């Protein structure tokens, strides 16, 4: 479990919201202009700090949605009982200033020379697709030919984040294949997966162990637990399965 050590103090800096894009009815991407950004790696996250006019502050972490070298972007899913995500997805305006610090995290990253040439298996549950999109964009920008399967589990087509971008990337000639599983609602004539991930699906989607694959799994806890344990059962070495979990397990 070795990796790039992050050194030096992370200080808060003021970022300006440069563009907003609605990805779905409840998900928005914010492009941030951060004057002293030191750069980031694909898969890292950052911290956001908001200050209310009465001095109340809240901090949250968000995955970085953009590739290294691109302007910093985050993609935020609105949680109706949340405090920060409703503000970021509904209230914030272009030109507004918010505080950020980062990048943070050095394990859940894809860095081509260090990560090797084995094929990539990216598995996303819901908004867990965000750091995986940064990896896909990075792959394109550096001209990597590492083959990629993205398995994206989402309730319905309407909730697919980055849909047009992913459809555009989904070209086997370029080595990228996007496989959806629509777990709740499928459009008429849907022939793809329509269930929660299981071991059979992973056996069909995952690269053979002998090809030296590297897996990145991000999503709600139950999704990550299922995918990661299925991959281990298929023979993936645990250290080749990097995970990022969010959300609760329900009853522990």
């Amino acid at each position, binding site marked *: 479990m070795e990796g790039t050590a992050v050194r030096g103090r992370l200080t808060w800096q*003021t970022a300006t919201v440069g563009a907003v894009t609605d990805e779905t009815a409840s998900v928005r991407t914010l492009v941030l202009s951060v004057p002293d950004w030191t750069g980031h790696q694909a898969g890292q996250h950052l911290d956001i700090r908001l200050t*209310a006019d009465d001095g109340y502050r809240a901090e949250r*972490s968000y995955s970085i949605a953009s590739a290294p070298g691109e302007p910093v972007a985050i993609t935020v899913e609105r949680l109706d009982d949340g405090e920060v995500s*409703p503000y970021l997805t509904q209230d914030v305006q272009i030109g507004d200033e918010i505080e950020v610090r980062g990048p943070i995290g050095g394990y859940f990253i894809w860095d081509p020379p260090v990560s090797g040439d084995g094929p990539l298996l990216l598995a996303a549950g819901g908004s867990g697709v965000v750091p995986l999109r940064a990896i896909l964009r990075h792959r394109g920008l550096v001209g990597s030919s590492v083959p990629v399967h993205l398995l994206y589990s989402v309730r319905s087509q309407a909730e697919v984040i980055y849909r047009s971008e992913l459809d555009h990337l989904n070209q086997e000639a370029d080595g990228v294949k996007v496989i959806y599983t629509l777990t709740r609602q499928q459009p008429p004539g849907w022939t793809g997966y329509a269930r929660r991930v299981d071991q059979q699906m992973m056996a069909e989607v995952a690269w053979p162990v002998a090809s030296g694959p590297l897996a990145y799994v991000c999503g709600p806890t139950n999704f*990550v637990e299922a995918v990661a344990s299925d991959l281990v059962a298929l023979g993936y070495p645990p250290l080749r399965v*990097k995970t990022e979990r969010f959300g*609760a397990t329900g009853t522990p």
Partner: protein
Amino acid sequence: MSPISRGFHRRHEEAEPAGRVPPGQYVTHDFPVLSAGPTPHTPLAHWTFSIEGAKSPVSWTWPEFQALPAETVTVDVHCVTRWSKLDTSWTGVSLDVLLDAVSYDAPYILAFCDGGYTTNLPVADLKGGKAWVAYSYDGKPLPPEHGGPARLLVPHLYFWKSAKWVRGLRLREVDAPGFWEMYGYHMYGDPWKEQRYAGD
């Protein structure tokens, strides 16, 4: 001077008990899971807990560990990702009991775990009724995704120091970063001082 976000305001007016929630944290009633890799599943027959680096190292099997004096404690835990969970109930063996089984004068430990995770702690933070190896949560065996069969419980530091799937401690003369500490997280991790990242 922080920019003011007009229209942003506190949403959760529920009064948090004074002095129990460190700065920058919010209270959750769920129990989120954060791990860098797959959840390991070590059969109890193969499980041991060891203290290495002492003048005479010691190791307990699962039945031996279960036979050690246990405590049930109710504590608040604080994750660096900003959730805090109050009044969590754990059963396990105090580190006072475990460290009393060895003779040492090293001031630091590196905890090691199934799955390759490590984290560093001063021995002083493990002594004096402040730390446990917990194998039960809320009266039930600790679920694997939460670190079962056993995890460290060091509630006065950020929760990444409470290493899941812990298998032992390596006594060390010098402090050396563990897994998250290598990636820029704080070497000590006091939530009341918001020691989240290196340099905080």
